[in-house]
């Protein structure tokens, strides 16, 4: 056993002692960088296998890993996949492995390394990864998966949240069923907050006499920033800028929404039951000014109504009764179902039945690939693209792992929407409802971000079909600080019957002293966020590339950026080697579906950053007629510095 600093004595029987498990996570303006470190000692007289198993959020990019075994340090470098493999083949590590594997959880990946160590050996693992926080349903959610695997003499988790815009609220929900009540300590200021989670060994125990740890789950930090002051926040630093846009004091825009639900035989049981349950709640949430219908399909396509119906209480009640009667059976004809939905919306649009200020959405829920009718996914994709009008956004929810998720993603991304994977189990209903709530409140349409100055380059997607309440649109780019002393942006958008032009000017040194004052603030956050956004959008664009040449070009730029920014992406690998270079491990990213910005609600498009819509004329010069000047001004007798205004 090892005398601990805190004087607690570990049990004799421990073969491997977890001396320290430390997590440090800093969120600087939505950009989160996390470090997980663990130190273990092999107490047994025999060699032992020591495992470092960390779950990281799907879509996070690993930026660094190091391992020290008895003083021999293995460091990581990022290599192009084939290069990485070749290096690994040359000098495989003995008794050591490392790898990234897809976990069974929806939104996570596992980074796992295993090393066989001699008696008495000390091992330290350290992993760094970064991710962007997407605003959902009015807050940002930062999850840290804690899996020390055993009691840790020192267990320290620190989360710093640094938001120049100001923190509106910050909350750490109880995710350990009350076991650690009062242990997370929150200290919060205007723009910074710190969450500290440092349970003692006794507190870690599942029960007072137990040897297992209760620290096995996720620590969640929920927060939102202040946005009453300004509708948009433009942050510039180090030659990069990030632009956050999330106005929420607007009234919802009416929506025309079609629910296209897979009722094939594979949906039988809990999937259908949960889907029906979710749909009943969702229909109840529709607003009076919304229009909707329901299409259910297996090898045949049925509709509750063959056209859009106003979401009055009676109509909603009727639709709910219809849904309750659905019995899943038969095959899956996605092609026909989607074309029927598109036809209904197009028809209504052509007949002028849609409120010109409304938005049109299709939400497809499916748990499998087509088995009837058009089976070729690319053909289905083509059919949809050719028929759907550009005022319609298509969102796809892929249930479980039997559905070709990549297909759903392409299908949605190409038609102004996104796809999301959900589990087909007991909480399908809550996932469906949660997704619906993200798109239930359209507030703005045709949101476009413009940066007129010519020295602004490499802007990420800056044109978005919708903006939904509770979410946030993020745009980033580069600029030449030598040529600008302030960066101007012009956001144009339309809501109900209003057109908005929002100008923002950011001074170059706005953030300088703010970031310099806090040692935890990441001065590199703008570059990282830009790189993260750019790579993810390129990954999605790659899957939609129309030609092989275009695909190759995108692949090259993704690879170059991954190497430049030192991150593991589907095109790069983590090569971990000792100093001598005669032992290596290889960690490949799993064949991840190239989604854009997992968790992001938007897949926009790019327009030239200085193509401001013609109806918007920024920086108006107010027409002020100099009324009072008309009268001759007598020489003022009191000295000008006296501001004297007549009173009665």
């Amino acid at each position, binding site marked *: 056993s090892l005398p601990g600093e805190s004087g607690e004595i570990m049990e004799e029987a421990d073969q491997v002692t977890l001396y320290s498990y430390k997590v440090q996570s800093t969120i600087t303006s939505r950009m989160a960088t996390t470090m997980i470190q663990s130190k273990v000692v092999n107490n047994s007289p025999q060699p032992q296998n020591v495992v470092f198993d960390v779950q990281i959020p799907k879509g996070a990019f690993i930026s660094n890993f190091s391992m020290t075994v008895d003083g021999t340090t293995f460091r990581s470098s990022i290599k192009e996949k084939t290069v990485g493999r070749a290096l690994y083949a040359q000098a495989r590590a003995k008794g050591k492995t490392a790898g990234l594997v897809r976990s069974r959880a929806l939104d996570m990946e596992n980074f796992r390394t295993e090393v066989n160590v001699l008696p008495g050996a000390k091992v330290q693992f350290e992993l760094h990864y970064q991710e962007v926080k997407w605003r959902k349903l009015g807050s940002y959610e930062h999850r840290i998966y804690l899996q020390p695997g055993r009691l840790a003499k020192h267990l320290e988790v620190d989360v710093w949240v640094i938001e120049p815009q100001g923190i509106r609220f910050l909350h750490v929900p109880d995710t350990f069923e009350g076991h650690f009540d009062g242990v997370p300590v929150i200290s919060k200021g205007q723009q910074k907050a710190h969450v500290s989670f440092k349970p003692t060994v006794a507190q870690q125990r599942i029960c007072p006499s137990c040897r297992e740890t209760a620290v096995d789950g996720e620590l969640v930090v929920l927060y939102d920033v202040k946005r*009453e*002051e*300004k*509708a*948009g926040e433009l942050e510039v630093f180090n030659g990069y800028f990030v632009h956050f846009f999330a106005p929420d*004091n*607007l*009234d919802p*825009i009416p929506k025309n929404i079609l629910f296209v639900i897979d009722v094939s035989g594979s949906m039988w049981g809990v999937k259908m039951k949960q889907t029906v349950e979710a749909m009943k709640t969702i229909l109840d949430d529709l607003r009076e*000014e919304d229009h909707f219908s329901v299409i259910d399909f297996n090898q045949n396509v049925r509709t509750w109504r063959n056209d859009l119906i106003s979401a009055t209480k009676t109509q909603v009640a009727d639709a709910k009764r219809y849904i309750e009667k659905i019995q899943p059976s038969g095959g899956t004809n996605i092609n026909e179902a989607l074309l029927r939905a598109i036809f209904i919306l197009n028809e209504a649009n052509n007949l002028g039945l849609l409120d010109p200020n409304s938005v049109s959405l299709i939400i497809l829920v499916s748990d499998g690939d087509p088995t009837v009718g058009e089976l070729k996914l690319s053909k289905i994709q083509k059919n949809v693209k050719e028929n759907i009008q550009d005022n319609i956004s298509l969102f796809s929810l892929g249930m479980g792992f039997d559905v070709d998720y990549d297909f759903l993603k392409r299908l949605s991304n190409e038609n102004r929407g996104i796809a999301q994977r959900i589990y087909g189990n007991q909480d399908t209903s809550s996932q469906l409802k949660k997704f619906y709530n993200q798109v239930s409140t359209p507030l703005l349409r045709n949101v476009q971000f413009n940066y007129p100055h010519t020295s602004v380059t490499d802007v990420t997607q800056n044109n978005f079909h919708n903006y939904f309440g509770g979410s946030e649109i993020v745009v980033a780019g580069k600029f030449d600080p030598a040529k600008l002393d302030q960066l101007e942006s012009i956001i144009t958008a339309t*809501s*109900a*019957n*209003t*057109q*908005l*032009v*929002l*100008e*923002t*000017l950011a001074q170059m040194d706005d953030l300088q002293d703010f970031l310099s004052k806090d040692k935890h603030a990441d001065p590199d956050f703008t570059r990282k966020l830009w790189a993260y956004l750019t790579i993810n959008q390129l990954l999605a664009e790659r899957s939609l590339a129309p030609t092989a040449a275009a695909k190759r070009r995108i692949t090259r730029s993704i690879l170059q950026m991954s190497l430049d920014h030192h991150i593991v992406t589907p095109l790069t690998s983590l090569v971990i080697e000792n100093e001598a270079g005669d032992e290596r491990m290889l960690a490949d990213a799993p064949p991840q579906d190239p989604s854009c910005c997992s968790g992001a609600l938007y897949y926009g498009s790019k327009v030239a950053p200085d193509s401001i819509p013609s*109806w*918007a*004329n*920024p*920086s*108006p010069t*107010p*027409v*002020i*007629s*100099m*009324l*009072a*000047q*008309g*009268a*001759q*001004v*007598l020489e*003022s*007798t*009191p000295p*000008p510095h006296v*501001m*004297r*205004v*007549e*009173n*009665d």
Partner: protein
Amino acid sequence: PHFIIYLPKSQKNICFNIDSEPGKILNLVSDPESGIVINGQLVGAKKPNNGKLSTYFGKLGFYFQSEDVKIEISTEAITLSGGSSTFALSWSDTAQVMNQRVQISVKKAKVVTITLDKEMSFSVLLHRVWKKHPINVDFLGIYVPPTNKFSPNAHGLIGQFMQEPKIHIFNERPGKDPEKPEASMEVKGQKLIVTRGLQKDYRTDLVFGTDVTCWFVHNSGKGFIDGHYKDYFVPQLYSFLKWP
């Protein structure tokens, strides 16, 4: 609030001021025929100064009935309500919002310009004071340029002067304060004593303002405005004035 009324035909500035209770709403323009109303709600200083509590415009309301658009401008936010939608901006934005024929443009922490039909426009200036000042509070100024777009029946503390009254100023003489000459002014059948004074126009210089000399009418403009200033109290920010 202080008023400067410019009379283009006689080329004169006539000024007066009104002090009333915080919370009261004064009607500035009321034109049922063109469906336009502008009201100002008073806000008081943090405490009396020399025993007297000054009041300012802390909130202004514009209502364009035919567009069904209401605009509330306070020292904190600018809110446009049109039909079923509301749109709020803050004085920290530089923005434009267009709702059919009504356009609002906000110049960050300076001025809001409301334009109706590209013809009629109003400017509202924000006066920010030192937050910890023991007495002063933020307040707003409104500027209504001359226009013939109002109907002849337009009224209100400002609206009534869209139809320029005839004035005759004569017998200018030294006043009680040697630096402030007095004169007699005939207007609307009344004969008033007016005093030469200084007011401020802040449109070109938001901090110091530009000196504007004018003939000051005492007693809250009595005799120069129709009736008594209390006749211009209205119950709501978007109420039309019920003129006796």
